[in-house]
Every structure is written in C-alpha cells, then in structure tokens.
C-alpha cells in the first residue's frame, strides 16, 4: 500500500527547503492499494522522475507524509530504508547497470545483496535472462549491448527479487514496438501476481492499449488521479 499525504519535494540543500520556490513537487496526495497499477503521466519536467525517486527511496519528502509498502518513510531512520529498498524493483530511464559487471552479475546483484544462497541465484538468474531473451549474453558486459538489450537487463534486475512494488521510468523509450509490448505483457503478468506497479510515460499509445488508472502531474502538482 502506498499513501502520500501533502508531500512536497525540494532539491535544495534545505536552506529554503520550506520555501515555495525550491519545491519541484507540491501537495502531492494519492493512494495506491496493494496490487494496484498506475500510469504516471505528465509533460517533460512535470516531476514524474522526482515522484518516482520518492517512491524508490532515492529522495525523502521535504514535507508531508509518505507511506510506502506500509512503512512511513518520512519518519523512518536511514537503516530502516535498506530492507524496504529490496522490496522495490526499479527500471531506470538510463538503465543504471554496473558497466564492469557481466549481464549475469548485474541481474544477480539484488539477490546477492539480499543474502540469497549462491546455488539458488544461478538457476533464478539464468531463468530470468532466458525470459527476457538474453540467455546467450550472460557473460557480456553492458557497454557491449544495444540500448534495447541493456533495457532488458535492467528489467530483469528490477524483477529478479520478486519485489512488492515495481517502478518504471519511461521504460519503453528505448524499445521498439514489439519489445515495448512484450514489456507491458510482463508488467501486466507481475501485476496479476499481486505486484503493485507504477509506470511513468508520455507515450499515450501504450495507455490506449493498456488502460489503467493514471496519476497526472503538471508543474509539480497532481492534477488528476484516476
């Protein structure tokens, strides 16, 4: 369950963190039930990435209250966020793969950080890479892959840990239509299995093919919910 109540975010150093000028998100209030699916829409610069950063705990609210997977993160200590992050899978706009690690090791990383035994890891990662069509590239380094392939590695890494919440920031931006459709099928499948999902996009074509409630942002404010 996710519940935001009058959340504000500023990227300032805190000096004017309370001032209206520094806020890139203001008065954001919404809720997403467990297992819910939401599109996150809005023009470029509206604050989609900023809102996702709050959700995947790369930033903390400057104001208001944010409850993520049942945890009040506005009041939590740093240590409390560590395990919460392991329950959230993120597909970044720019992939954020570790360039010096193989495709296999990139995808295995969340499992290793969670302390999963090495024996289980091998089978799970191999299975996941088959699923995203990269079984033959396990030993490759990310910089040697195409944009679409890197995207699929990022997706595999985001879902390998069977997270309770998946966040995707313009995930289809680097994919062709067939690949984008495949990704949406995967996300829909995970959503059916009970994973909450929020996907930021400005590609309205996707929206038409996969109708779902949407959070609409404009200039840092929530202008539509549903």
């Amino acid at each position: 369950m996710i519940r935001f109540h009058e959340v504000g975010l500023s990227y300032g150093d805190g000096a004017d963190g309370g001032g209206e000028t520094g806020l890139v998100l203001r008065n954001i209030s919404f809720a997403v039930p467990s297992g819910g699916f939401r599109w996150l829409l809005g023009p470029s610069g509206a604050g989609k990435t900023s809102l996702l950063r709050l959700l995947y705990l790369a930033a903390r609210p400057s104001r208001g209250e944010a409850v993520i997977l049942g945890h009040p993160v506005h009041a939590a200590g740093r240590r409390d966020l560590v395990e919460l992050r392991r329950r959230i899978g993120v597909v970044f706009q720019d992939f954020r793969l570790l360039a010096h690690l193989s495709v296999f090791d990139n995808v295995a990383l969340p499992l290793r950080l969670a302390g999963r035994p090495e024996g289980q890891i091998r089978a799970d990662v191999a299975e996941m890479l088959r699923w995203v069509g990269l079984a033959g590239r396990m030993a490759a380094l990310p910089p040697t892959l195409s944009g679409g392939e890197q995207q699929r590695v990022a997706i595999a890494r985001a879902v390998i840990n069977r997270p309770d919440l998946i966040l995707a920031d313009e995930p289809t931006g680097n994919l062709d239509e067939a690949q984008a459709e495949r990704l949406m099928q995967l996300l829909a499948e995970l959503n059916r299995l009970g994973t909450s999902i929020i996907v930021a996009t400005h590609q309205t074509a996707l929206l038409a093919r996969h109708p779902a409630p949407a959070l609409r942002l404009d200039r840092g404010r929530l202008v539509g919910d549903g």
Partner: protein
Amino acid sequence: MARDGVRPREVRLRPAGFDELGLKRAFAPRLLPLLVAAMAFLAALTLVGMLAAAGLARHWREGAGASLTVQVPMPDAPAATGAGSRAEAVLTLLRAAPGIAAARRLSGAELDALLRPWLGATPGALGLAVPAVITVQRAAAAPLDEAALTARLAAPAPGTLVEAAAPWLARLAALARSLEALAALALVIVGAIAALVIAIATRAGLAARREALEIVHGLGASDGYIAARFAARALFLAAIGGVSGTLAALPVVVLLTRLAAPFTALAAPGRLSPADAVALPATLWLAVLPPAAAAIGWLTAEITVRRWLRRLP
C-alpha cells in the same frame, strides 16, 4: 524491518572475489602501500627508540633510587665507640638501620679496579690512603633520612660520608623518560598521518565509484556492506605497506640496537648481555606494526565510507 541478524550473513554469502563496486580498479592507489610503508618504516625506528629510552629510564631510575654509597676514611683504625675497626662498626650500624636491605664493603681488588682508570695505578702503589667504600641497597619503599644516618655513622667513625647514588642518574632517567614520551608522541603522529593518507585515498575511491555506489545503495546494500568492501581493500593495501615498511626497517633497527648496547650496559652493569636484551623485545615489538597498519587502514576506511554514505538517503 532492519534486522541486524541479516547483515553478517549477506557478507559471508558473497562469492569470493565478487567485486560489485569495481574497487580492484577504482580503489587501487599505487601510492598508498608506498606511503604506508614509509610510515611503517618511521614507526619502526621510533618504536625501537621508544623501547630503548624506556629501558634506559627504568635502569637508571632503579639505579638512582635504590643505592647509597658510604665512605669510611681510615677504615682500619679502631672505632670511636664500640668494638672493632671503624669500617666494621659502620657496617654493623648500617645493617641494623631501618630501610636498608643490604650493605657490602667493596673488596680491595674492586676498589683498585674502580680507581685505576682515574689514578693510572693502584692506590696502594701510589701510597694513597683509601677509604672503605660500602654500597648500600635501600629497601624498596622505605624512606631514608640521610642526615640522621650520617650523624649516626659519625659516632663510631667521625668523617664518614653518605652519598645518595649519583644525582646524574636521576637526571639521565628523566631525560630518557622525556625521550620516551617524545617517541610515543611521534608514533601517534605517524599513525595519524597514515590514517589521513588512507582517508584521502578512500575518498578518492568513493568519488570515482559514486555512480556504482548509488546504484548498489539503491538496490538495498546497507552502509555496513558497502563500507566492508572498501575496508577490506584498505586493510589489504595497508597491510602490504606495513609489512614492506617494517621489513625495510629491520636491518636499521638491528644496527641501532648494536650501537645502543654499550649505554644499556652502563645502565645495568653486569646484569645482562645487553645487545640481546634490547634486540629481542624490540624486534618482537616490530611485529605489531603490520597488523597496526592493517587495522588503521580498515578502521579509517570504515569510518570514511560510513560518513560519506550519510549523504545518500
């Protein structure tokens, strides 16, 4: 949610050699082992100097505190009071006095040996009248009133002198103690510089791997997990430096110990075979330096990384 029990497990299960932060390349400052080696070299010399000064201070302090010399002129003349010669009467009185553990009259041969370097011949050959010299060991804790003792000894043997062991021994002991303290201070400074060097190298490594750190942090790595990666590497680099610096210092230490041996012998005449007595503990103490360098490396990296990570949410 943050269960402490989970954290050591995740570190153990990490496959050996798995370098998720890419530290083998990003945190491999070639200069670091070299600088730590230089620190270990300095620390080795300082440590040996400190131990030598400590040894000298102890010997000199014991020498200064524990003994008196009593000179009895015309030792063989009959005592003014009581029976026997003056020397015998003084000895009897000394042995009965409180606060005195032992008193022994130096033999003629010992006196000759003591005086020959000054006189160029034995006193007898020069026809000199030599007083009896009695060395007195004081009981450890008991205070001694020298003036009262002198007065008491003058009764059977007027002219008897009581001399507290040379004040220069006390001066030397104080000097050695100061040297010891200075050496300890120098050791602390060398350790602090090593920590500083390691902290700077660690911060450079953190800056070089900032993106990877943010990614791994975002995937749910704890501060302890990330700090442990850096600390393991810092420990390794500092240990290499510590071992090579200490080994390089070893020949110098042995040489210095040889040079210092006569002074140590002077401080504790006849009691030990001086070269060995100083050399052995000093070289053993040097074995502390590599683990100390490794520990400084580990601890500095842990603290530096944990502090740096606080900038991440």
